[in-house]
């Protein structure tokens, strides 16, 4: 029987299988950041151990950093201490740090791929649930807790039970105004926030093949939001074109050798998945979430579900609670509802293509005066590219300010918080209660939908602006 791509990579990295226990999996690349690493570093030191493979570790500061005045000392004391701790730890243990002030600094899941560090066939972990992003390159990438960060520090391995595998096929062509963020929000709305728990997902199908690498990253990024361990897309010519000539990509003969290896990275024709789901791309429209988990989403012109339309008692209760928190009514439409904030950023949608999408909507128009807009490029390099393409002028002409790279308002660890009771249309990945600030109300959407709201000040079907 044939093997899935997931199995092929898993087996290649299997050091040992513990009888009636987890597998010991070797990790090719370990990304770390300031929030989930400090206790792992002190744990290692308490054990009197060294970092086993510092060269396979890459660090950045992203969650806690301010997005303005990054050249000045961080004002908030705890944030400053945490970021400084990472600097001290990396220096002590000789780990490459792309920290504040470094030209490669940015959101960890943006910089890995753009530097050519993320490559097909790798096992990649990080103390962050959106590590699944790197799966877009045909790698096994997933989020881990701080104890597991310490495990990788100590041994470059992790203990993991092998998950089941699910394949989600998306066939056909996307409609106008629909982008990869809408694909993943649509999928999660169909299978729920726990629908893929226990599975590792592979995305396949003609609609997936047609996507660029950045668009694929958006999809893999949100795999965790349906409970999946991770998500991956088999590499192809698009993948190779993206990686070639990036800073840390293999070059010359080494490149040719790697390409030969990577060509073998696909699920066999007769591979069997534990579950398979088929999606028709033509069914997908611009999406927006209305509730307090990413699965509670609807198409932009639809109405919020009524309580009666839901059969499961627990889900009814969830809906009622979510609507109360969000200040919405069952059965209402969202279109035309005023929003006070728009956030364009996060590891889901802050790359250059996302910003080009935003520019395509706002060009020649002005920011609505009743909306506070935060535009946060995913990395220093993305910001530089913004300027090189002249997109920064488009943004400033329209009355928008561009911030500096970081996770920012996705989770509001720094000062970029959404005030209580206010709505924010956000290109990020989570809409849990208080995610963007205590009492904040998040509506997840694509960069196109977010840009449209920044112009009109209300929830808008971007296709009406794109004519």
């Amino acid at each position, binding site marked *: 029987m044939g093997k899935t791509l997931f199995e092929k990579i898993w087996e290649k990295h299997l050091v040992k299988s513990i009888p009636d226990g987890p597998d010991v999996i070797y990790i090719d690349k370990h990304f770390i950041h300031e929030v989930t690493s400090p*206790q792992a570093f002190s744990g290692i030191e308490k054990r009197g151990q060294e970092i086993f493979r510092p060269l396979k570790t890459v660090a950045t500061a992203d969650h806690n950093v301010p997005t303005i005045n990054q050249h000045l000392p961080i004002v908030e004391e705890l944030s400053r201490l945490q970021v400084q701790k990472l600097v001290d730890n990396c220096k002590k243990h000789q780990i490459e740090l792309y920290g504040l002030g470094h030209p490669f600094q940015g959101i960890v899941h943006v910089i890995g791929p753009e530097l050519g560090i993320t490559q097909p066939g790798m096992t990649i972990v990080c103390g962050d649930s959106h590590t699944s992003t790197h799966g877009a390159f045909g790698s096994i990438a997933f989020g881990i807790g701080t104890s*597991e960060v310490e495990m990788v520090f100590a041994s470059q391995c992790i203990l993991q039970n092998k998950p089941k595998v699910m394949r989600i096929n998306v066939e056909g062509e996307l409609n106008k105004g629909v982008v990869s963020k809408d694909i993943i929000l649509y999928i999660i709305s169909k299978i729920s*926030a726990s629908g893929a728990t226990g599975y590792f997902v592979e995305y396949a199908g003609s609609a997936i093949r047609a996507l660029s690498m950045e668009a694929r990253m958006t999809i893999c990024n949100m795999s965790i939001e349906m409970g999946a361990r991770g998500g991956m897309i088999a590499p192809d010519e698009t993948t190779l074109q993206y990686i070639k000539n990036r800073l840390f990509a293999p070059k010359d003969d080494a490149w040719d050798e790697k390409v030969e290896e990577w060509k073998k990275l696909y699920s066999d024709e007769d591979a069997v998945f534990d579950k398979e789901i088929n999606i028709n791309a033509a069914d997908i429209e611009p999406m927006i979430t209305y509730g307090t988990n990413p699965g509670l989403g609807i198409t932009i012109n639809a109405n919020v579900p009524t309580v009666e339309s839901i059969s499961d008692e627990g889900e009814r209760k969830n809906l009622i609670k979510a609507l109360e928190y969000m200040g919405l009514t069952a059965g209402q439409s969202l279109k035309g509802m005023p929003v006070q904030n728009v956030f364009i950023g996060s590891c889901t949608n802050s790359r250059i293509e996302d910003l080009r999408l935003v520019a395509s909507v706002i060009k020649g128009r002005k920011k609505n005066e009743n909306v506070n807009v935060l535009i946060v490029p995913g990395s220093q390099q993305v910001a530089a590219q913004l300027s090189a393409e002249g997109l920064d002028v488009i943004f400033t002409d329209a009355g928008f300010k561009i911030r500096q790279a970081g996770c920012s308002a996705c989770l509001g660890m720094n000062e970029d918080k959404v005030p209580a009771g206010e709505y924010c249309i956000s290109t990020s990945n989570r809409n849990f209660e208080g995610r963007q600030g205590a009492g904040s109300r998040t509506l997840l959407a694509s960069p196109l939908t977010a840009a449209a709201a920044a112009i009109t000040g209300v929830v808008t079907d971007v296709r009406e602006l794109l004519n």
Partner: protein
Amino acid sequence: MEENIDTDQIIPARFLKSTSRDGFGKNLFRDWRYFNNNEAQPKTDFILNKPEYKGSILVAGKNFGCGSSREHAAWSLLDYGFNVVVSSFFADIFKNNALNNGVLPVQVSDEFLQKIFALENGSTLSVDLENQTISIDSTGEQQKFEINNYKKTCLMNGYDDIDYLLSIKQDIINFEKTLA
């Protein structure tokens, strides 16, 4: 009885700035326990603020711990005093984080969970890790729960995953040679 309790509720992001593992207990479910993040303004309706409910076992509706990979969620439960969490379904990453930190996730059937929720105040539960059972003390009703044998051995003996990995370092070094 709430379902889908996510990690942003268990431990809000603003508390992740600590650089140590200690002291997370006071921020457990912070925004559900207090108004305005103020300990002088408890939300008296919230179960952890009701004096008649105490103990080391937390019982929660399905999909407990969904969301982020923050292990701080497990640390805050442990620091608060919970050794066991009971639910009908656990999010993956949270389950791993709990097992790695001395918090035992016990998964029971939906039916059994509802029976627990229906118990009177002052009722107690017993959890036997060796025999993998959870019992309602007043009725003697019992259910078996699953736990990975390796994790069970670690929990019962106080071993740590890292102790294990360090013990097989040579195997790892040999493995690396096969990758080159």
